[in-house]
């Protein structure tokens, strides 16, 4: 019995040691920010503001879950924002042309999954670099949507209350975006830590060649992963149209995708793959959300906000490097 306790406490220690990775640093930093802002910044502390804060990171968070997952598998998906905006622009275009909403939504889901499957297939079977394939795909999606309707913005019809519910509705006082984000995070956590494909994904991220040699069907797995990312992008789009009531394709050209990557990497998902957890992504989101919220309350101009945000990020990167330095000898590209 004592031995068992010994083991379990060892396991706990192991687990604890495991946790002293970036996500803990991130959570601690976020905690420090939260506490200090709550004390020093009037208007920051309060349930409502915290809900606003969480609400504001929901879309970023959902996108980051997908990006984090794909980066763990040693890929990257720059088409996420394009798929998010593109698939929902298609819904709105279809509805505008008279298609029924459920049919349009279904069509866009198929579209999103098809784009994901296409990227995945090109990456898996042609073995082209993911960075380029997804960058190219985002250009193409952008073009397709404009070809369907050359409008800069597509609005949600006034009567589509069901659609708006996912962005603006509340369930037991909690805004839907938060609920969707948390559900996605939970599912992603279970997927990564409990499911077979999830474990395969880590193996792939660690060493794809070894993973393949052990018999993991690497190529179908890659296609599957990119389809999940597309699905998450689609869900993020659902929240997007629900909250903002419109889709603006120009967001594809904005540096929004950089923010997603930053959140993911900030949360300790290494670009070398194989490392990272759902919790760490959520931690990264919280950190960014807290900062943005506080800076907006302080009415700091966006450029100064960016400088502060950038400096804090740099600091976080440097601190992270001191806490757990990379093995320089085996450090790889794109890291």
């Amino acid at each position: 019995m004592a031995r068992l306790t010994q083991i379990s406490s060892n396991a706990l220690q192991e687990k604890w040691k495991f946790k002293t990775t970036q996500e803990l640093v991130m959570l601690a930093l976020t905690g420090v920010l939260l506490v200090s802002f709550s004390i020093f910044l009037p208007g920051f502390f309060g349930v409502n503001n915290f809900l606003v804060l969480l609400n504001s990171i929901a879309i970023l968070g959902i996108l980051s879950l997908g990006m984090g997952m794909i980066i763990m598998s040693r890929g990257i998906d720059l088409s996420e924002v394009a798929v998010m905006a593109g698939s929902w622009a298609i819904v709105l275009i279809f509805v505008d042309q008279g298609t029924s909403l459920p049919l349009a939504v279904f069509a866009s889901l198929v579209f999103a999954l098809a784009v994901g499957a296409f990227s995945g297939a090109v990456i898996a079977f042609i073995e082209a670099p993911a960075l380029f394939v997804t960058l190219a795909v985002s250009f193409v999606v952008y073009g397709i949507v404009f070809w369907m309707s050359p409008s800069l913005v597509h609005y949600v019809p006034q009567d589509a209350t069901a659609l708006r519910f996912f962005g603006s509705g509340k369930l037991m006082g909690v805004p839907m975006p938060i609920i969707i984000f948390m559900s996605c995070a939970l599912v992603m956590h279970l997927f990564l830590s409990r499911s077979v494909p999830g474990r395969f994904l880590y193996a792939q991220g660690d060493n794809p060649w070894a993973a393949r040699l052990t018999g993991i069907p690497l190529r179908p797995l890659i296609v599957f992963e990119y389809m999940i990312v597309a699905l998450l992008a689609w869900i993020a789009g659902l929240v997007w149209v629900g909250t903002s009531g419109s889709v603006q394709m120009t967001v594809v050209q904005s540096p929004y995708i950089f923010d997603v990557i930053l959140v993911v990497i900030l949360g300790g998902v290494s670009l070398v793959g194989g490392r990272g957890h759902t919790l760490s992504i959520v931690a990264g989101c919280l950190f960014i959300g807290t900062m943005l919220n506080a800076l907006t309350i302080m009415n700091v101009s966006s450029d100064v906000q960016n400088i502060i945000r950038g400096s804090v990020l740099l600091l976080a990167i440097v601190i992270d490097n001191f806490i757990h330095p990379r093995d320089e000898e085996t450090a790889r590209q794109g890291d």
Partner: protein
Amino acid sequence: MHDTNVDTTKFFFRLSSSVSPRLLLSELLMKKWFEPAVPFTLLVALILTLCLTVPNFATVRNVVSLATLYPEFGFVVLAMGLSMISGGIDLSVGAIFAFCNLIALILLLVLEWSIPGVIMGTLAAGAFVGSINGFLVGYLKTRPFLTTLVTVIIVRSVVNLLNQEHALTFATNYVESDAWDFIASGQVLGIPVNAMTLIVVLIIGHILLSRSRFGWRLTAVGASRKAARHAGVNVNAMLFSTYIISGLLCAMSGIFFAARQASSDSFTGLGWEFQALTAAVLGGISFAGGNGTVWRAMIGGLVIFLLNNGLVRMGVPGYITSSSVGIILLVAVAIDVKWSKNSSKASELLYVNPTRIPLARRPSIDAGDDNPFARNDRLLSSEIFGLNQVEGPEDVILDRQGRVYGSTRDGNIIRFSGENFKRREVFAHIGGRPLGMQFDPDENLIVCVAGMGVYGVTREGEAYKVTDETNRTWYKLNDDSRLRMADDLDIAPDGKIYFSDCTTRYEMTTNALDVIEGRPNGRLIVYDPKTGKTHTEINHLHFPNGICVSHDGQSVLIASTSLSRVYRYWIEGPRKGGLETLLDELPGCCDNINRASDGTYWLALIGIRSPAFDLAGHMPGFRRRMVREIPVDEWLVPSLNQGCVVKFNDAGEVLESYWDPEGVNHPSVTSMREHKGYLYLAGLENNRLGRIKIEGADTEWTGFDAYWGDPQKGSA
């Protein structure tokens, strides 16, 4: 012998054995500069398309206009490419460009510095931002992708804030300066000054990257940090300086943009980091680092630039431009991936290109025939020495003191002396694979070393380089300036060293493939110690092996292994420069040739021909399939399980032969030397040396004296 008909036949034979599309392709695929073939083809196709579709595209005016517009992006792509070669990435290139553009304008219009001051100040600003990246990446060891992504955010915001502050000054101030106007729109030799600068920077960058210590170290760091560190490269400093250079390049770009457009806004350089990244990868600069040239960066940069430029000028709607760029990027990357993955495989598959081997009639070797080649067992009586003390001695030689020299596979020259050659010592360690040997008049042992060149060993056993390269053949794709496999040598009375480089396409370990290929890949090279120059005398020999200067010093005898033939090449006299066949119709593949005491020559036959082997010589397709489809030890080669030495004279008559018919003592003999009535034997794959007594030979004759005279007797 020298009638036109024969010459024509010879010419066509040479042509057919040297030229083959498959050969060309396989050699092209090996070339480093051929690697960006796909992006280059894309670029050419793009230019052609634009010339045909965009009005006024193929005009001087338009070319000049494009040449004015491109360089800024070109510098940025170069910066990106450089950081990628170092194994990192610099996503802040666009932001640094915008920042430097702004700094140049501030220095010029707000602070009103002089033009040189503006240039230096802007370069310093670029270097400064680069040094921040470099410090973080190089010394604090942060991740380049993430670090530079964050630098982008900060630098861009700083640019926006400064823009806000100085927008009014930019709008109202104007500087009248010829120098500044020259930077903006001047021309050098009809080329816009910014394009000229880019060209100069490219050339410097190319030399720096491919010819300098800095470039090699940079590539080494990019290819493998670990290896670079172990090789003593200061990795941190290399990375640090790379990002500084990247910053400097962006600063140059910023100066030109500031001079030409006098504009700074939040769009300046926006999205350039991804465009530059796309360009660099499209051009073939690997993400993995350690691989790339400045030209590849430029190819990729031009493709992206022209694509954007062309599509907007065609009046194509923006969304189609977007889709087209996406699709072209997808296709290009897919082709490039497939190409880089398969081209090395293809070149491996295509590399061995057998051709028809024109072997002469094969004489009978049956024992008892009235034929100098008739098999006997005269080598069976040899005294073996140095057993297991040498390893693969290709050649054997004796010095004036009667000591025997052999070699080992790991690059040692072994000396045997004393009674029954019992005393073994390592005379010298050269490295490589020592093959043919000869003494020069100063008693230095000159050695052909496969993979290295021609080396010398002094009497004290100190090795030195004689030569390791020759002139390059201008019309050959294959760089043949290096000595691949120096095989045998001899020294003419005037001190010139004639040696064979048996193959320019294969290595020591794969040289059997050259024999199977049967192409004239080998050459006769001469090194002149007086001038220190090395020069290729004949560059189309079929596996030239043994070299021997004739007794009269007028010609060089060359043994061709794959043709089983001995040539005479005149180096003096009326027929100087002429090449003729001296010995043909030999029963096996020739190896080394050395002088005999009676004015004739010894020739070693490494392998004995068989009817099947001769037939294969006429069937290149068979040999190609053989090499490709069956394992090495199943290949059809001449019989190696016999040893044979033949003697011939200057008239091309074979006089007698010495055989070890079962290969008991000396299988596949590759060399032999006569010394004081004995014939010493060596073999490339043997573990021994040996000697036999030659009946009726001059027991006082030594090779050294025959060449350089006996100092005791006076000059010969």
